[in-house]
C-alpha cells in the first residue's frame, strides 16, 4: 500500500493555509510548495466542496479530453461569402436581427447596440427614419436573437441583418458551418454604434460590392483558405487575433489580391483599396473560426470546458459544454483601456461583443505573449504579456497544438477554459477588446483589457449537472 512508500520515500509537501507549517519543513530540506490560497467560489464553502468533488474526477477528466479533441480537430476553411438570409434561414423567414452576447430585449439594450439596430433597420429598408426604426423595435415589430443561437458571431454590437454579407466557415470533416459578418474597418462603424451617411454608405457598398467580389475571388482560388494555418502564421508575426489583426489581415489580403484584381466588374478593385486600410479585417474570420472550433466541443456530458463567452453590453455570459444551452450571466465588466483623443473611461460602454470567442479558443488575451505591439494595454512590457498568457494556462485544460507563442518559447496557446479552475483560483479570463462609446451613434473610442467575471463561472458551476454516484 502507498503508506509504505510514504514511510520509505522523500516527502514532497504542498502547504495550503498557514505559512508557519511550511517553514520547519523547508528548514529540514523538504520540498514544500505553498499554495497562494484564497477561499474558492467567492467563499461559498458548499459550492467549494461541490467543486472539489469534480476535481480529478475520471468522468469529468475524460469528458474534457473528448471536448478538447473535438475543438482541436476542427479545420476551419473559409468556403463562401453570401447574404445572411441565405446562410441563416431564420433571417429570411422573420423580421429578425441577430445581436452579440446572451439574449437581451430592446428595452434593455445599451446605446451602441440600439444604434446598430436602428442602422440595420434603415439598411434593410424596414424604416425610413431612426425614430421609426426605434418604434418598430420597441413595439415588437423586430425580433432579436443572439448570433450564437445561429452558429454566428458578431463583434461589438454584433448586429446581423438579412442583407449583410456573411463569412461562411466550414469544417470539412463534419460539414459543420459557422458565420460572421464582414469587418467595416476602424473608427466610425455600425458595430460600435456609429450612425450616419458614411456608415450607411459603407454598409450598402459592402452588400453590393464587397460581398460579391469576395465571393467571386474566393471561388477562383485553387483551394479554400485554411484559417487555422493562417492564424498560426499570424501568431508568429505579432498578432493575437482578437485586438491585433495586422499580420493576419495582410496575409489574408495577400491570398485574395490576385483573384480580387480579376473581378473589377464586381468591385474587386474597390475591395482591395478598402482592405488596404483595414487592420481589423481578419478579426471576423478569427471569430468565425473560433466559433466553429468551440461549438464542436459543446454538448459533451460532464465536461466543464467553456464553449462560449459573449457580451451584449449590459450582461456577459458563458456557455459550458456539459451544461446544455443555458447562458450563465453577470453584469458586463468595465474595460481598462487607452482612449482616443477627447474620450475617457466615463464615456465607455461596458464590455460588449462576441469577439471574446477568440479567448475561448486560446487567442486574444490567452495569446497575448505573441503580440508585443499591444502590450501597452496591460502595463507596457512584454513580460507582463507573457505573465498573462502563463496565468491563463492555469485555468485551461490544455494547449493548442498549432497556435504557438513565440514569446514563451513556442509553447502552445492555452485553450479550453475549465470552469473548475476558474472558480478554484478566482482567476478571471483576460480579454483584449475594443471600447465603444456608451451613447448611440458615436462609435469606437479606445481599446483595452477586460475580464470575464467570476460570477458567470460560479453560476455555471452551481448549475452543473450532478455526476452519477462514484464507482
Amino acid at each position, binding site marked *: *500500500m*502507498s503508506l509504505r512508500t510514504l514511510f520509505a520515500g522523500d516527502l514532497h509537501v504542498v502547504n495550503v493555509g498557514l505559512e508557519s*507549517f511550511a517553514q*520547519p519543513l523547508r528548514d529540514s530540506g523538504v520540498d514544500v510548495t505553498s499554495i497562494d490560497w484564497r477561499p474558492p467560489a467567492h467563499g461559498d464553502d458548499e459550492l467549494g466542496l461541490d467543486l472539489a468533488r469534480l476535481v480529478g474526477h475520471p468522468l469529468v477528466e475524460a469528458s474534457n479530453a473528448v471536448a478538447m479533441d473535438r475543438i482541436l480537430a476542427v479545420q476551419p476553411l473559409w468556403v463562401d461569402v453570401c447574404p445572411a438570409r441565405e446562410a441563416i434561414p431564420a433571417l429570411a423567414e422573420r423580421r429578425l436581427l441577430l445581436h452579440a452576447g446572451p439574449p437581451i430585449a430592446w428595452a434593455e439594450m445599451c446605446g451602441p447596440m440600439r444604434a446598430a439596430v436602428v442602422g440595420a433597420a434603415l439598411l434593410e429598408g424596414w424604416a425610413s427614419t431612426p425614430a421609426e426604426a426605434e418604434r418598430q423595435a420597441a413595439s415588437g415589430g423586430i425580433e432579436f436573437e443572439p448570433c450564437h443561437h445561429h452558429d454566428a458571431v458578431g463583434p461589438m454590437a454584433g448586429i446581423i441583418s438579412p442583407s449583410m454579407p456573411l463569412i461562411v466557415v466550414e469544417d470539412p470533416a463534419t460539414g459543420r458551418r459557422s458565420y460572421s459578418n464582414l469587418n467595416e474597418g476602424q473608427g466610425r462603424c455600425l458595430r460600435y454604434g456609429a450612425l450616419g451617411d458614411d456608415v450607411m454608405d459603407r454598409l450598402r457598398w459592402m452588400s453590393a460590392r464587397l460581398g460579391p467580389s469576395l465571393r467571386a475571388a474566393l471561388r477562383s482560388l485553387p483551394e479554400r483558405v485554411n484559417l487555422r494555418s493562417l492564424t498560426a502564421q499570424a501568431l508568429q508575426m505579432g498578432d493575437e487575433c482578437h485586438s491585433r489583426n495586422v499580420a493576419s489581415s495582410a496575409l489574408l489580403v495577400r491570398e485574395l489580391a490576385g483573384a480580387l484584381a480579376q473581378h473589377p466588374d464586381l468591385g474587386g478593385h474597390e475591395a482591395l483599396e478598402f482592405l488596404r486600410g483595414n487592420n481589423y479585417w481578419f478579426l471576423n474570420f478569427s471569430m468565425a473560426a473560433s466559433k466553429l472550433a468551440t461549438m464542436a466541443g459543446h454538448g459533451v456530458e460532464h465536461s466543464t470546458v467553456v464553449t462560449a463567452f459573449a457580451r451584449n453590453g449590459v450582461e456577459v455570459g458563458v456557455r459550458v459544454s456539459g451544461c446544455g444551452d443555458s447562458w450563465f450571466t453577470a453584469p458586463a465588466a468595465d474595460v481598462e483601456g487607452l482612449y482616443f*483623443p*477627447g474620450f475617457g473611461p466615463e464615456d465607455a460602454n461596458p464590455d460588449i461583443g462576441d469577439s471574446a470567442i477568440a479567448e475561448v479558443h486560446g487567442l486574444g488575451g490567452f495569446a497575448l505573449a505573441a503580440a508585443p505591439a499591444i502590450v501597452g494595454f496591460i502595463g507596457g512590457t512584454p513580460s507582463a504579456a507573457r505573465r498573462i498568457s502563463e496565468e491563463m494556462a492555469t485555468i485551461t485544460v490544455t494547449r493548442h497544438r498549432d497556435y504557438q507563442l513565440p514569446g514563451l518559447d513556442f509553447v502552445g496557446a492555452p485553450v479550453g477554459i475549465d470552469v473548475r479552475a476558474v472558480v478554484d483560483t478566482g482567476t478571471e479570463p483576460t480579454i483584449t477588446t475594443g471600447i465603444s462609446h456608451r451613447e448611440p451613434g458615436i462609435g469606437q473610442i479606445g481599446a483595452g483589457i477586460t475580464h470575464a467575471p467570476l460570477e458567470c463561472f460560479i453560476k455555471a458551476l452551481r448549475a452543473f449537472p450532478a455526476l452519477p454516484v462514484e464507482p
Partner: protein
Amino acid sequence: MSVRNVVHENLYFDSVALMRVAASLDDRPGIEAVSLVMATDANRDVLSDAGLLTDEGRAAGPNDLIVAVRGNEAALVEALSDADAALSQPWSPTDGTASPSHAASPRRLVGAPEGANLALISTPGRYAAAEALKALRHGMHVFIFSDNVPVQQEVMLKQEAHQRGLLVMGADCGTTILNGLPLGFANAVRRGDVGLIGASGTGLQQISTLLDSMGVGISQLIGVGSHDLSAEVGGLSMLTALDALAEDPSTNVIVLVSKPPAPAVAGEVLARAAAAGKSVVVSFLGSDVRAPAPQVVVASDLREAARAAARLSLGADVPAVEAPDLSPLVDTLPGRWLRALYAGGTFAYEAELLLRPVLGAISSRVERYAPGRVPRLPDSHLVLDLGDDVFTSGRPHPMIDPATRIEFLRAAVRDPASAVVVVDIVIGHGAAEDPAGALAPVIAEAAGSPTAPLVLAFVVGTGHDPQNLGEQEQLLRDAGAVVVDDSTTAAEVAGDVLTKIGATR
C-alpha cells in the same frame, strides 16, 4: 487654451505605443488633451472632430506622425518636448508591473508540482474538506490541522482515502512526525522502533517525549484527529495507520492513544491490534478495555503507556522515577482547592480521571469568562482545558499564546482558597518560543506570599527542542514551582497533597 501639432515625417509607431505615450501626458496640469497618431485620413478626421488638428497636422501624410496637444502655453511646450523624448527613447518598462519570469505560486492545489505526496491543510475549517478532497484526488496523503470540519465531511474524506490507499491525518490534528519530520506541533525526539498513533495530540507528545527520556525512539508518530475514534468516523485513519505500522519494518512496537473511543470502534481497533503481529500498547484513557491477546498491553495512563512501550522496545524494565515527597509542604498551604490549568486537553482529561476517585467532585468550567477580565474561580476543585473552544474563540491556542493562561494563573496564585496549582508546558516545533518564561514571573510574584499555593509544573519536550527541556524546567524551578516529569506524575502528586490536606482539615 491653444492647440499645437508637431509632425514627425516618416516616423512610424504602432498605435498602441502612441496611445500609451498620449496617456502618460494626458493627466498633467495645464494639459487638456493629447493625441499621437499616424496621419492617415481617418486619424486626421478623428483629430479634427476632437478639435486637435492644426494646419501642420492637416498637411501631414499617412507615413507621418502627428503629436497633437491642447492646453496652456507652458504646459504645451513641456508636453511636446516630453513626447519627443518618449518617441526617441528605446522601449522600456515604465511601471512596476514587470516581474521576473519565475513562476508564481500556484493558486490552487491542483497546480502543485507532479510528485507531491503530502498536503498540509490549515485553512478555516469550512474550506478544509474541499482542499483535502482535491489533494486525495491527486494521490496525496493529507494532514488537516484545521478544526471545525463537519464530521460527515471527515467521514467522506476518510472513505475516499481508504479507497485510494491514502491516509488522512485529522481533521483537528495537532501533531505528526513522518520520517522524522515534524508536522504541526511536534518534539525533537530520537528515532527508533516505536510507532505511535493517536487521536490526542498532547497525549502523543507526552508519550513520545517520555520515550525519548528513556532512551527509546520513534519510527513514525501519526495523529489521526480528535474525532477519528467517534462512532461516525469509525477509526478509519487509526485502522489504516495501524495496518501500515504493522507492515513497517522499522516499527517493532506500536502505541495507540486516545480519549475513550466509541465502544464499537474500540472493539474493532483492539481486534486489529491483536492481529498486527507486533506488540501493541493501548492507552484509551478512561476506557475499561481489556487486552484481547497477549501481545496487546492496556495502559491506564500516559506514563504507563510510555513505560510499557519502552519495556517492549528495550526488552528490559525501565526504572521508575521517584516522585518528590511534598508532605512537609502540606501544613504551609493556606487553601484547600486544586487549580489545574492545562493547555493540553488530554492532560486535563487524564487529571480528572486520576483525581476524581481521590478528590471527589471536580469542576471543569468557570462562570462568565471573558478575555481581559479577572477570572472567577469556583469554590471547589478545578481542572480546566484552556485549549477548549470557550477560551480560544478569536484567540490563539494557549500552546501558542499564553495570555489567557496568565490571567487564570494569576487569579489562582492570588486566591487564598487555592492549595495546589498545576500547569503543563508544551514545547517543541509549533509551540511558543518561551512558554515557561511567560508563566514564570506570575509564579515568582506569588512565591513570596504567605498565602501562596504550591505550583506544580511539568514540561513536555526534549533537550533537542528549540526551547530546550532543561532550560524551561529551570526557569520554572527558579520561579518557585515544583517540577515533575510528566502529566501523570503531576496529577498523582497533586492528589497526594490534596488528600493529606483534606484529611487534616
